[in-house]
């Protein structure tokens, strides 16, 4: 069953008097439990495509169906709802609320989903335990290392049980060892049946995925299934 079905979408921005064709003609299908890496140099349109996939933006033309529902015609509120329920974001810069502790950060999407206090607290704590942060529940982001912050962000992305996890350069702000740990965590999440879309410009990160889509100048240059790189199981990544 395909979750994402994009057909011939384009996106045109106006920068001053000039029109920028960020996406020219892109078609893409992503099925459940896929692990897709979207690659491309800067200016290739991969950020625009990611915003589109994350329902933060709508295409200028073309068709985008999310689980069979057309996103192109959704209102702001419907987009907000789909982001809340169906999409888990993981950002390069973590994007946690600086003054709130880990539990509150993970709770946030559940608050907007209208989950009662007791249940959402329980689910937030469970999500943090699942990413190995049992001892860091009430730490604020500035009391956590980069890797731990990204784990909080991943817990926040997973807590709503979304249809896709959308990770934008998730290791971009981490050293390579911590980056590997985070990729190991994504591997586990994928094993559990989640669908992951990874946006990156780094070849060795993309190698974790089962399928690599390469963009160039707003067009898909290649879309191929690849041999997945072996992931060594690192003890610390295993849920305790």
């Amino acid at each position, binding site marked *: 069953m395909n979750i994402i079905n994009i057909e011939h979408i384009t996106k045109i921005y106006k920068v001053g008097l000039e029109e920028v064709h960020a996406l020219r003609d892109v078609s893409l299908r992503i099925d459940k439990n896929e692990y897709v890496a979207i690659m491309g140099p800067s200016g290739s349109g991969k950020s625009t495509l990611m915003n589109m996939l994350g329902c933060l933006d709508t295409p200028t033309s073309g068709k985008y169906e999310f689980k069979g529902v057309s996103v192109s015609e959704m209102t702001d509120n419907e987009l907000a709802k789909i982001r809340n329920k169906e999409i888990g974001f993981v950002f390069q810069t973590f994007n946690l609320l600086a003054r709130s502790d880990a539990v509150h950060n993970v709770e946030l999407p559940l*608050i907007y989903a209208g989950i009662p206090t007791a249940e959402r607290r329980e689910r937030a704590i469970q999500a943090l335990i699942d990413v190995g942060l049992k001892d860091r529940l009430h730490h604020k982001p500035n009391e956590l290392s980069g890797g731990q912050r990204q784990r909080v962000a991943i817990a926040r992305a997973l807590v709503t049980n979304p249809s896709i996890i959308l990770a934008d350069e998730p290791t971009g702000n981490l050293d390579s060892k911590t980056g590997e740990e985070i990729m190991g965590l994504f591997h586990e999440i994928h094993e559990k049946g989640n669908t992951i879309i990874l946006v990156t410009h780094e070849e060795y990160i993309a190698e974790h995925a089962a399928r690599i889509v390469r963009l160039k100048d707003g067009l898909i240059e290649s879309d191929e299934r690849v041999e997945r790189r072996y992931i060594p199981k690192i003890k610390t990544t295993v849920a305790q």
Partner: protein
Amino acid sequence: MNISQTFSIAVQSLRNNKLRTGLTILGVVVGIFSIIVIMTIITMLQKSIEEGLSQLNKYTFQIQKNDPTFGGGPRFRETRPDIKIEEAYRLKELLTNAKYVAAEQWQFGIVVKYGNKETNPNIQVAGITADAIKTNNWNIEYGREIRETDVQYSANVCLIGKDIVDKLFPNINPVGQTIRVGGRPLQVIGVIEAQPALFGQSRDNYIVLPITTWQSMYGKYGRSVNITVMSYGKEDYNDVIEAATGYMRIIRKLSPGEPDNFYIYSNESMISQVNDITGPIKIGALAVSIIALIAAGVGIMNIMLVSVTERTREIGIRKALGARKTWILTQFLIEAVVLCFIGGIIGILLGLGIGNFAGSFLNAQTAIPVDWVIIGITLCVLIGVIFGTYPAYKAANLDPIEALRYE
């Protein structure tokens, strides 16, 4: 997602930035404080004045030649004929529905002597007819009252107030003793019970004589008599005023078209005069405070706008995680209203506290201007909504992609 969750998010983010919150609240506190402190003091004064008046003469009004405060104008002061004691007695005959009709005259700044002791020259000397004891609500502590026969024979007798007892007769019973006022010997026949102070001013430093005796001391002509009238109760008070006005016009031989050449001076007229003074002060205070509150409101808007910019990323995160526009809008609006509300409450408490403290130096009674407390809170919430709307609208309409990219 409901309003109580939005509320808790708003409160959470206020608590997360205590300095910003505190400074914003301070602006509102100053605005509300200034209204409440002024209104508290005015209310205290008004309450004291009204209470003092109603103790002085319940169901009583006075007829005087001139309006003692405003409005009479110098034109009338010169042309109006004096009210004579005979007119008072004539009114007493005619005004049968009144309980008491009395006449009185006052002289101020008099020295009273007893033996080789004397008072400061600040004693008030009243000349009265017998009914004035009742209309003035004087109680005789011991001794006897001034009677109508004392008035008829201009007897050299007097009643004295408590202050004079304390000053001249610290150890002996004054009744039966003879005091001297301006060389005239007067026999003390009674002592008047102490009266509650008005504005911390003692009201017991006076002596009371028959009005005829008074007139032989201070002159009968060229000085107008005050007539005081007391009705049986509250219900007929206005009827008695009306009847008295009619009879006074007859007594003073006014033809129908002519205006009254006397002035009726009642509790109500006094209170309305007090309100004439405090009214403009209240309006002035309200105007100043509204300006202060608008300044505070602009401050709130400024801080909220800075806060929107500073929190652009936070708003982006919230939107990416599924917050709707209206929820962001509500959150920021609630933040502004909560700030104003807290500021308002603190301002009101400070205003009441300091207002009552300052008012206590004026010997006024404690008071809470409930109407102004309500007006104050309403203004605060209104300011919060008015000046919170634009920043909240701006926050709600941020593009999540731009907001997330914001550094």
